[in-house]
């Protein structure tokens, strides 16, 4: 299987993720979109690592995972606190700040 396929896949994942962020109104779903984007980047990294024949890509992916995890923690904390206040995790409901 050509490595390009992986890149295409990661491109698709990245697009899906960003579309989810941009169009979905639920904070959690949007957040998952972001995670999908990060993982798409990870896939790209690992693929390129393979392409270049070194382990850097994988190592970077490790770091990215860590960062993503930290982001999850912070994100969950924020979303949960909002959710508790409003009983909803919709971004549209959070519109006290005029745009």
């Amino acid at each position, binding site marked *: 299987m050509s490595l390009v396929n992986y890149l295409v896949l990661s491109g698709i994942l990245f697009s899906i993720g960003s579309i989810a*962020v941009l169009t979905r109104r639920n904070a959690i779903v949007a957040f998952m979109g*972001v995670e999908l*984007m990060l993982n798409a980047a990870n896939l*790209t990294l690992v693929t*390129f690592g393979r392409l*270049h024949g070194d382990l850097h890509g994988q190592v970077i992916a490790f770091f990215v995972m860590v960062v993503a995890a930290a982001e999850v923690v*912070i994100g969950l904390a924020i979303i949960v606190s909002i959710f508790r*206040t*409003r009983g909803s995790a919709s971004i549209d409901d959070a519109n006290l700040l005029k*745009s």
Partner: protein
Amino acid sequence: MNQFVPPEIDWAALSPVLIVLGIAVIGVLVEAFVPVRVRRATQVVLAVVGVGAALVAVAWRWVVVQADGPTALVAGALREDAPALLAQAILLVCAFVGLLVIADRSSGEDAFAPAAAAIPGSAYEAEARRAGLVQTEVFPLTMFAIGGMLVFPAAADLLTLFIALEVLSLPLYLLAGLARRRRLLSQEASLKYFLLGAFSSAFFLMGLALLYGYSGSVRFDAVATAVPATSGMDGMLLAGVLLVIVGLLFKVGAVPFHSWVPDVYQGAPTPVTGFMAACTKIAAFAALLRFFYVVAPGLQWDLTVVLWIIAILTMIVGTVLAVVQTDMKRMLAYSSVAHAGFVLLGVIALVPSGISSVLFYLLAYGLATVGAFGLLTLVRERDADGNVTGEALHLSQWAGLGRRHPVLAVCFTLFLISFAGIPLTGGFIGKFAVFGAAIEGGAWPLVVIAVLASAAAAFFYVRVIVLMFFTEPTGTDADPGTTVVRTEGLTAVAVVVCAVGTVILGVVPGPILDLAANATKFML
């Protein structure tokens, strides 16, 4: 397989970052072990001393670097060179005053929710407030953010940059949601900041991945050397560079990546807004400078168009939208967008003086920003019973403030005219330097637009001055509606430092400019 070679680590060179992050860690331990009574005092002292010590360390490293030349640290992940150190110093100065504002307790309470996780408006929250609980986690959080920011200008590879980006962002996401009053607004700001911030860092990461794929490395210099090699993957290279730049532009709040700025600035606790507005911008621009100046020269032709458009949009949109704002914080937010556009001129210029001028601009802007937001924290509303409540942020509430509180109003005016770039303030010299660099870099059409935008921008700064000095106060003498609270003194100190700094930068900027003139070259 290569034998693992442990990298040489020059601990001394890392000392500023280590000090700040070390204090942050100690701050967390303080939260865990120090009794509540003395916790806040301990945290404040730790943080202030930490930032001060880091500043001293940066100064020391500056001397060393001036003598011995720049070096690569931690196996090349960081660079210790003049621009990095200068950016760090500027950052620390702004962080220092920002920290003072954060630590201040005007009218007896700080700006942060005592129980951030409590449901706004709940009985528990009210109880926590009554019990006089204080939010002291803000100090470690701030220190972590500062730590990330310190790494930012020095980062010489994309991975380090990415991690620093997150280290500085994550605490800020939280800090944005901690406002004592207007909890819902604050939480919402936090959520928006987080979602959009995470979104942009995903873009940054994809850019990183693409650049890694193109060059086989995430080092700036490796990417730069790979640039001339035409391998049929130019599209990937360009996409990667653009995505990375998008991630950084988001942090500086450039149009079209600015949508978070007004909301977050408005919703976040005002001291945090000041800190964030100043320091994030400094760090992000310093990183953008390094990335752009190291990687972009080979790509100049492709990138220029994009960056020009972004710079123009940023200046125009920031200015135009600021004009129609009626909330002080939103107005300053849009003004900060416009300022991002001005600073971009220095980045785009791609000439040595661009580096120093951008740094100078950021210092001037940072001081004025922290000072302005510091003053915002002092102007409060007063309810029917005469109790002091939240900040008076509507423009109309500032009417006639100059009559009652001339010193405050004059300081605020000073910051505003510095923003507007009127001479004898730091803002003017900054604008002068940046525009100069842009003209030197051949971007004179941008300068023309920037000049026009500055003129238009003056309108909304001046409008505030009009309100403060020329308008009759809305309330009566007995019940002014808007009041100015006494501080613990820390904000006063911060504002005075900012004001004096702004004037010094405007009247005798020579020494600082001389210093900055040393920082005109990035170590590859």
